[in-house]
């Protein structure tokens, strides 16, 4: 464990431990509704962290991460429904295929010098291909949707991921913690420093002798595969998949709002962002409900508003200034937040 804690200030450790304990015991006190909100928050924290590997660490903007969510979701769901394959086994082909698709997009882009917004457009294009493709892919229901059997489970079936929300909550919490630790280690690894160099200045990175093609590929493939794991969760938690929803660009945007608002390239940014956005959006909904006001789309307006405020007043995201306020010194955690 020591290598994980090296150089992290004590105050940060205490806060982190309290925060984690809070998450660990939350389901004991939370009602069903709050639990679903927490699951949503963790889902966005997880997916945001995965996206952050590509954009925050390596500087490659993806606006099509719904593609990997969708692939992970459809592949494991189809294997489970059609062949009875446990999602714990199905996730291997799901992650492999998503990683391979990420590699294909990365290869096309980086081999032919597509970067910046053009790379982002390429990622959107592939997500759109998938959306339209799955609309016509009748084996998994096409546009009519694909459904997982839902029954009243008296007992959690962990092996087949069928069970209570509480079970899903803990699985997702474990995933979020795992990807957080992974990112923490990655940032301190050689790859992490190479990504930083590529993000800050690809020309300088190349002049220093970094194989920028290879390291950009690593970031894309890793991000894609890990995001697909989020998709596996998505499928088994929501039990229904519609191409128009799963692969839609608004899904991709939702994923990236958390890290942008929390702080791109920081470790805590995606988590803080997910809590802020989903937490506030749900509170807003609750208030509207109490007031008896029914305004469809108010959540999207709220997201837009948050983005505007952050871009104008906190261009680095909420986390970096918050970290300063909390007295978590920059020396020890500077590049990762």
């Amino acid at each position, binding site marked *: 464990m020591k290598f994980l804690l090296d150089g992290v200030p004590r105050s940060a450790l205490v806060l982190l431990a309290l925060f984690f304990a809070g998450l660990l015991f939350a389901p004991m006190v939370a009602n069903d509704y709050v639990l679903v909100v927490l699951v949503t928050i963790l889902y966005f924290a997880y997916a945001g962290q995965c996206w952050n590997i590509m954009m925050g660490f390596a500087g490659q903007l993806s606006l099509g991460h719904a593609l990997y969510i969708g692939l992970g979701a459809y592949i494991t769901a189809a294997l489970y429904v059609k062949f009875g394959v446990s999602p714990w086994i199905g996730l291997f082909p799901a992650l492999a295929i998503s990683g391979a698709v990420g590699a294909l997009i990365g290869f096309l882009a980086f081999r032919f010098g597509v970067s910046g917004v053009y790379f982002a457009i390429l990622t959107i294009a592939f997500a759109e291909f998938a959306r339209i493709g799955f609309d016509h892919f009748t084996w998994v229901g096409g546009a009519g949707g694909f459904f997982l059997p839902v029954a009243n489970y008296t007992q959690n079936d962990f092996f087949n991921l069928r069970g209570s929300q509480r079970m899903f909550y803990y699985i997702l919490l474990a995933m979020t913690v795992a990807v957080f630790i992974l990112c923490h280690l990655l940032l301190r690894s050689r790859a992490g420093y190479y990504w*930083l160099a590529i993000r800050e200045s690809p020309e300088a990175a190349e002049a*220093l002798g970094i194989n920028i093609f290879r390291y950009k590929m690593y970031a894309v493939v890793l991000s894609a595969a890990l995001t697909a794991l989020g998709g596996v969760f998505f499928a088994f938690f929501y039990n229904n998949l519609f191409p128009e929803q799963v692969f839609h660009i608004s899904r991709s945007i939702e994923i990236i709002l958390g890290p942008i608002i929390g702080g791109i390239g920081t470790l805590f940014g995606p988590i803080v962002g997910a809590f802020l956005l989903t937490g506030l959006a749900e509170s807003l909904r609750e208030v509207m409900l109490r007031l008896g006001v029914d305004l469809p789309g108010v959540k999207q307006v709220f997201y837009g508003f948050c983005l505007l405020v952050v871009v104008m007043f906190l261009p680095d995201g909420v986390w970096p200034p918050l970290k300063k306020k909390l007295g978590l010194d920059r020396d020890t955690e500077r590049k990762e937040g």
Partner: protein
Amino acid sequence: MILEIKELDLYYGDAQALDRVSLEVGQGELVAIVGANGAGKSSLIRTIAGIERPRGGSIRFKGGDITGKPSYVVCNLGIGQVAEGRQIFPTLTVQENLEMGALLPRAREKLSSEMERVYSLFPRLAERREQFAGTMSGGEQQMLAIGRCLMGQPELIMFDEPSLGLAPALVQELFQTIRKVNEAGLTVLLVEQNVAMSLKLANRGYVIENGRIVLSGSGEKLLHDDGVRQAYLGVGH
């Protein structure tokens, strides 16, 4: 000869950037390549560095063929490059920038001794160790770029328009630094628009026009060449 280039052709699409360029750089030499904007100077540096792939010709470094090899291979063989426009990492400190320079396998082990050497060469950088590189002046950033390149322990160091955007007084200082680097035993290939100063500094020079080497010789000889004086130094008839 540490670097031998023969008949190098480079195209960007259909546009020819280098046309049968041949040149040689001897061990320990300081060679300048001068020419106007768009003559192909940067293209030549980028091709040697492995960033652009030539269509024809050959590049040999220390006797081995490096034509078309990717930049990370070329770097690790000992060709360092100070890229155009001071490509430093602005959000990293001076110290971290230098550390980034030593990530090649060939340079990792001697990181701390090299660091001391760079700091003694550029005392100004030592004073600003913990400062973010982006907050330094242009001249200091250029020093950092050079220092970072030295961290990779190159045998041949290439400068791409190092004086670009620097105040005249700083340009003087920069050229002194390049001389110092050369006197420390490194072979230098310098690409410049500042024809007079780089030819004064260089042992030998090449004049490049429209992707072709049109003239070569000792720095002294080129400085007194009528064509060079007329075209680049604004003197003559």
